[in-house]
Structure formats: C-alpha cells, structure tokens
C-alpha cells in the first residue's frame, strides 16, 4: 500500500528530474517536489585553500518519499542535509522547499522554517544533557507548537524507550541517546524529517525497528531523508541518492526495488 504510493511519487520525481531539468520555476504541484535543489554547490575555505563539499547538486524530493542519501565518509551527505534543513547556505545554486526559496530568505523566515517545516536527527545526537529523555522529547514537541506530554511519552515508547523516560542523556547508551534524538525529531510533527545516520549506533534489531518507524512516518505523508553509508539500509528506501566527492553519482530506486525492512540484514 504505502510502497506503491511512494514508488509512484518517486517515479513522478524521476520524470521531473529528467524531463524538466533546470525549470524549477515552472511550479511543481503541491504533492510533488517538496524539496528542490538546483545546481547547489557548497565549498569551504580552510587555511589558504578551498574544500568543496558539494558540487552542482540538483535534486527533487517529493512529499511522502523516503529517500536515502548514500555515500562514503566525507562525500557531503551531512552537508546536503544541513543545506536542506537551512542550517547552512549554499555557495551557489538555489534551494526551494515547498515552493519557497530558502537560500537568501530572511533569518526570521529560516527560523520559522526550521521550527515548522523540518526536524533533525543529528549524527551527534545533541541532546540537552540537563534534560531527561522525556523532557528532551517534550522540547521537540513544544518548539513545533504542541505541548503534549503524552505524545512525547508515546514517541519514546515508539522508539522502545518506555523504561528510560526519566534518564538523563549521560545515563543512556549511545543507541538509546540516538533513539531519544529520533523521538525528539518525530514528535515535532513537521512535514520534513532529516536524519543523519539515525541507525549508526543501533544494533540490527533496533535499527530495523527505527527504520520501520521512519517508513511509517513517510507512509503517513512526511518526507523522510535519511543519510547513511550503509547500503543495506538503503535497500529499504523508496529511492537512493548516491553521493561521491560531493556529486550525485546515482539516483533511483534501490537495486532490486524497495525491500521490506524485515528482510534487511547487516
């Protein structure tokens, strides 16, 4: 059911990418192209030289899609995610989210965008060390406008931390912290979820559980972008975008088509 819908969206996306490249202004429909990157590059000046993290990346992601960004370390995955999440600005190119350009948007707009449109799972968790697991998740809910203790509790139960509600991050294992971070992002209810290596610290069983959860959210209409260097995880996605040295080298459904998370092995 879900896979069909998402696959359809993905195909439409591919079609756009092939047929209408460079015509971002043409106005994609509301259900398509929630995220649109056009010729986005990002480079850093370090010392005397420049490090290029992303080169001429064009990408469209439709709403409800579960996209995996795959690539070796240093290939620019996190950079791409940061750009989509408006934590970073491109050196050149344009980024359009839900029809609105975010490169060059005002600070206030960017803050509102981050508050209302995206939510992050960081590669380094970044939980508040002085708040408990539950409070960290509540924070996510509150910022996005809700203040529902039960929802926060349910989000933690969903990630399998029902018995860790009142633990502080320092008392949690890496994987547990990661799941709190995921719950904090999910509970915002924002339409776009950006997850940087969300299963990096997880064992197989938990990892599958989390992926399943992300899949459910995608099925419910949220756009989920997951960064990983794990090809096995990529198999569960609707679509895999592969990066290498800052360039998109492949974009399409995983080889053999999307696989059910229960069949993954790593």
């Amino acid at each position, binding site marked *: 059911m879900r896979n069909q819908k998402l696959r359809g969206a993905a195909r439409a996306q591919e079609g756009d990418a092939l047929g209408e490249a460079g015509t971002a202004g043409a106005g994609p429909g509301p259900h398509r192209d929630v995220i649109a990157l056009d010729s986005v590059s990002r480079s850093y000046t370090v010392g005397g030289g420049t490090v290029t993290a992303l080169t001429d990346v064009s990408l469209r992601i439709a709403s409800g899609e579960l996209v995996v960004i795959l690539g070796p370390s240093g290939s620019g995955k*996190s*950079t791409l995610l*940061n750009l989509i*999440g408006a*934590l*970073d600005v491109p050196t050149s190119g344009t980024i359009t989210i839900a029809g609105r350009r975010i490169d060059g948007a005002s*600070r*206030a707009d960017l*803050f*509102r*965008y*981050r*508050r*209302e449109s995206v*939510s*992050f799972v*960081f*590669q*380094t968790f*970044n939980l*508040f*060390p*002085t*708040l408990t697991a539950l*409070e*960290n998740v*509540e*924070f*996510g809910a*509150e*910022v*996005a406008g809700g*203040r529902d203790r039960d929802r926060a509790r349910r989000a933690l139960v969903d990630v399998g931390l029902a018995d860790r509600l009142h633990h*502080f*991050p*320092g*008392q949690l294992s*890496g994987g547990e*912290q990661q799941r709190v971070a995921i719950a904090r992002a999910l509970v*915002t209810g924002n339409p776009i979820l950006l997850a940087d290596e969300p299963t990096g610290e997880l064992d197989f069983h938990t990892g599958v559980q989390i992926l399943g959860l992300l899949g459910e959210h995608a099925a419910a209409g949220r756009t989920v972008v997951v960064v990983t260097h794990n090809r096995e995880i990529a198999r569960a996605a609707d679509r895999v975008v592969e990066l290498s040295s800052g360039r998109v080298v492949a974009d399409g459904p995983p080889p053999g088509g999307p696989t059910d998370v229960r069949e993954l092995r790593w």
Partner: protein
Amino acid sequence: MTRLLRWSWRDLRARWVQVVAIAFIVALGSGTYSGLSSTSAWRRLSYDASYRQLRVDDIHVTLSDGSFVDAATLAAAARSIPQPGRIRAAQPRLLVPTQVDASTANRTILVPGRIVGAPIVGGAAGVDLQAAKAGRVLRAGDSSAPTATIDYHFAHHFALPAAGSVTVSGNHRLAYVGQVLQPEYFVITGNQGNLLAEADYAVLFTSLAQAQSLAGRPGAANELVVAVAPGADVPRVEQDLRTTLEARFPDVGVKVQARRADRDYRSLYDDIANDQRFYDIFAILILAAAAFAAFNLTGRMVEAQRREIGIGMALGVPPRRLAVRPLLAGVEIAVLGVVLGIGMGALLGYLMGSVLRGFVPLPVWRLPFQAGTFARGAALGLLIPIAATIYPVWRAVRVAPVDAIRTGALTARGRVPLLARIPLPGRTTEQLPFRNLLRAPRRTVTTVLGIAAAITVLIGVVGMTDSFFATIDRADQELLKSSPRRLSVDLASFVPVASATVTGIRQSPVVAGSATDLRLGGTLRNGTAHVDTLLQLIDLRHGIWTPTIEHARPAGGLPGIVISAKAAHDLGTSPGGVVTLRHPQRTGVTSYRYVQSKVRVIGITPLPTRYVAFMDLRSASIMGLTGITNTMVVVPRSGVSTGAAERALFGQPGVASVQPVQGYTDSVRHELARILDILLIVEGAVLLLALLIAFNSASINADERARDHATMFAFGLPVPRVIRMAVTESAVMGVLGTALGVVLGWLLLGWLISDLLPRAYPDLGIVSHIAPRTLATAAGVGVLAVAMAPLLTIRKLRAMDIPSTLRVVE
C-alpha cells in the same frame, strides 16, 4: 615539553576572553596588594626624609599653661646638662594662643590658632626648619618687622594667597610671606584631641622677638626644642634635661618629652600600620574573588579535557603527566595576571601617591618602586590561580577512565544529583535554565560564590564609606536638630555669669539668645579602663540645644553624665552604670585641683566622637563652678548672618574663639578623609572586579552552552528566546550570588567596623550602615550586569556556524 606548552597555549587561546578576564581579576588582586602596600613604604620613607630634611627636634620642653621664663635663661639652662656637647641645638620659643582672622573678600575665616615665635636660624645650626610650599620661608631680616609665615594646611584649605596678611588677637595685623610646612605641624591637631583640624586651626610662624612683642612679653619663652648631636642617646639627654630644668625652675611645671613620644609624630607612623591592615584585607578579598574566578575557568577547562584525560589514562599515561597540561594553563593564567598586576599595581600606587600627597603634604615625597612588595604581590597572584587549578585537575585524574570517556561531560559519572530530580513547572524551554543550574551544582556554586565574593568586597568597601557618612550625618542631624545657626563662643577664662564679658556678649546687637555653659577636660574611669573627655555642662532640660539622650536612666542621687556609645563601650559600662570622673575643682580665684567624683551614666549621646560628654549645669557644684562660665552658646539675631555674628563676637573682649556649630562635623569629616579617599580608589577596583566576574561567568556559560544553543537553533528556536534562557540562567545565579554577597558583605562590614576601625580610629564610634544606593549598586552589578552579560554574546550567537557546532563530538 614544547608540544605540551603549545597545546595548553591553544587551550587558552580557545578561551582567550575568559583567560584575559581572569588574568585581569588576578591582576586586580595582586595589583591592589602591591599598589596599596607600596604606599606604606613610601610614607615611611617620606616621613623619615621630611623629618630629616627639616631637622626635626628630638626633645621638646613645654612649660605649664600660663608660665613664662626668660628665653636666654631657658636655653642656657638646657645647655648646662652634663656633657652639653650632646646637644646640637637648643632653641627657646614663645607659643602664643591667638585668634586668627584670615577672612577674604567673600568668606569669613575666623579660627583659633597659635603664633610660634622662634629664633630664625637656618641651615645646619637650625632645628624645626620650614619648607615653603608657596612664597618663602622667614629670613634673618624678618625679625625686625611683624612678618610671619603661615601653615600650609590651613592656607591651602582656604585657598589663601601665597603671601598676604591676617589679623591676630589684639587686632594686630600680621603680614605673612609664605605658606610653609614645619615638622611639628605635618599633621594639624586642633583643640579637641586628635581630630585633624587644618580647617579650624591656624599656625603662624614668626621670629621670637616678634612673638614676644605681639604677646607683650619681651624676652619671654614658654617652650624649648632640643636637637641632640649625632650619636647621642636621646632618652639619656631627655632624662638629664628633665632633672636639670626641674631643678633650675622649681616653681614652674616643666614637661620634657621626646619627639618620638609625641602624639602627632606617632600617629603619622601608626596610621601606616593601621592603613596597611585595610589594604591587606582589601587585597585578600579581591584575591579570594580572583581565586573563585580562576577555579571556575580552570575547572571548566579540565572538564572539557576530561575525555582526553580519560583516553590518556586508558592508554596508560600516568596521571602526573596528564595533569601537566591543565596545570600549565593555570600557570599561564597566573603569569599573565601577575604581569598585568604589575601595571595595575603601578597605576593604583600612582593614584594612592597623589591622594597621600594631597592628604599629608610633606616637603619630600619619595615614591620609589617597591620591588619587594611587588614580588610578594606577584607571589600571591601566582599561587592563587595555580592553587585553584590543582583541585579540578586532581579530581579529573582520579576519575575512572571509563567514566571520563563517556559522552556528555556533565554527567560523565552517571550520578544524578538529587536536586536535578526536582520537578519543575512550565515548558522545557522555561525549565532548561533551572535544570542547567541544578544539574551542575558544583559549577553553579562556584559561579555563585565568585559573584558573591565580588559583591562581598563591594558591600564591605562601599559600606565602610556609607558608615562613615552615616555617622557624620547622624552627628549633623543631632547637632543641627535645633538652633542650627547657633555659635559656640569660647571665653578666654572662667568668668562669673554676671561678669562684663558675659553681659557684653548678651547685649551685643547681633545676639538674639544665649546660654552660659562650661567646657572642661576630664577623665572617666571604670576599673582600669579610662577615657579622656571634653565635658560640656549645659542645661539638659531647657538649653538652647540639648543632646538627645538615648537609653535614658535616672541619676539616682548621683551627678548624671551622658557619654558617647564609644566611650561606654571602651569603659565597659552602660546607662545606669556608675563611673569615676576625674575633673578640675576650683579652690580659689585662679587655682584648681583635680578631684574624683562618682557619676552615673544617665544615657548615651548619638554623637560619634568618644570624648563628648554632657552633664547638667547643676552638676557644676561638684567642680565649684556654680555661677561660672567659660563657654557660651549664642543664637544670632534673625537677619544677621552667622559670618557677621562671628565677626562681631570675635571683636568682643574676653572672647577666645567663635565657631559655628557645624565645625564639629567638619572636623569629623576631615578625620575620615584619609580613609575615604583610599576607599574611593578601592571602590573603583572592586566595581571593575565585580563586572569582570559577571562578564566572565556569562561568557563561560555561553561557551559551554554553545552546543545546546546550536541544537535549539536547528529546531528553529529564535535567538531572542535562546538569549532569554541564558539571561534567566545568569539572573538566577546573579540573584543567589548577590544575596549571599550582601549577607557576607554585611558581616564583613560589621567586622571591619567593630574590629579593625577602632584600631585606626580609636576616637570615633562608627555605626555600620549600608546605604540603599550601595545595595542598588550591588544589585546592579550582581544581578543586572550578570543577567545582562549574555547579551554580549548575541553577536557570537547570530554568527554561529550551526553545523560545525553541532558536529563536534565531545
């Protein structure tokens, strides 16, 4: 080693703002110590040099009041001691008490004073020479004309011209040719004990011949100053002089005293030690605050390195070697602080030097760099931050490696303080500031203590100023509560109340009302304790002005006395207690003897000086002085200015001095001027200290929360919200620190005033008082500045590189 140095230097550079702030705090502490303490050495050196340059006498001989002998005979008698070669110079002098009218075109200046007549001998043969601050000193030719020099303190206080003229008793016009310093008058003591009195006491120096002619006593002397030859034993000469002079003038009271035993001379040197005690305390307090600040920062730096220390320990590096890097940081802060401290000390010393020069004008001021003092200050400045580093380092290397490696530095040991469990209401963003405080209680406590230390010093130092002013205000209020325009008219001698002198004053056209009182010296004793007093006998019930009597008790048949709180304290008595009063009793028309009477303390006067005491005029009977007066209180007629009344009464026969009643508080104000000026300088340093500490804790906080802030930004929490949280967190610490600081400051002030001040100012009873303005300043610095300090980080927050801040793995 160089790698380690470079590493720790990089640690410091990463936090250079805090490092510089702490170095400044250390500098303030060590600089205050070195700068203030240097002045002690400077004063000692300068006093010595000034006394030497002006060839101060070693021994002075005074004849009892009203006695005169032939000048030449007196000098010859002195030189008749065994081995007269021990005397380098012996100078007979004539001291004449007088009224001095130095009024200028727009100011009435009428003060008591004295004319000091001495032979004009300069150079090596001289003794008690003068140094001109303006105009010139007396020359040999000045003996033949009524020419004088005037004491610099008085002239300077009233901004008199370098040369001019004054009128002295007997309506003599006396020209002066210069404003001078003379070693006996480096400090000016008035009629009323050891209060500084340059505002109301004028000393004029003239030739012996001129003084004799002004006093109408040709050839007479009533004082002798002696300088001993180099190498002679002063106490022996003193003893021999006493024996010789007592034998030579058996019917005249002769008092022989070494200069070193002189009260003014001693007070100059004693004050050095007393002031040094204050400096030490100020410096120690500031250094204590610096220690907290250093402890805070190095603790934080060690905390940040905890992981690396853990890795090192896991790799088997001995803790000693791991401790070197953070310890080096402590040393580097200390060195930077000490270097800055030398500059700070030099600046403070410079400021203090100019205050001192203004306060104790001397012919010679020597202000050499005090290497030893600065070395001690540097040692303190080095030791304190290093000591503050040792504890956190020691703690860090004792942690089990497994704990050190865990992420989340704050909770590395997985233990959660009980406080952190306290449930808090409100949204998580509202809770976060409090959670942060509760979750890291040690950090919170050290920050709060740092703020408290600064506020304690602020309250202690400024509170002292407040207390002084409160004391003066209280005195003003008491004295001026009724008939504020009244004048105190001292008569030249005891006269019957019906005498022409009194009647003349009463009937003067400028006088609306008057009272005849008595003022005499006495001593109160209780057991072994004794207090010199200036007794004022007035009509306690219906006088023109009557003292407020606190804790009043009935006299119960004994003569009653109202004394100051300080006197009661020093005597160990309280209202209702009975003490012994040694007082003069009239035995004939001009003869008196001292007797002792039991008197009852019937209350306490709010006046702060120890020596004030009041008795009812009816008690004059025990002194045999019923119907006799020597001082009057006069209220000028309305429409007559106090100045005009002063001038008119000054011209009346039998009047020794006329002073407005405010004169008393002016003299108290003067007495306190020395410490007030020092306090002002220290206040500046303390304010800077408090601000630095406030800024530092905010900036440490901002750095520490950078990651949290980046996360909030990623979640779209706007900068103002994030700042508000930081402000809340700072404000809570500010409130706690300030509250604690105010309490500790109050205790400190109490201690300073009850323990330290009495040694420096035995004659004053200061009540501790903290002005609302001071509390406002404390709140302003401790709460407002601390709370607002995060605003300084707005720019840094706005420019934050969010991805980089988020990416760093702790």
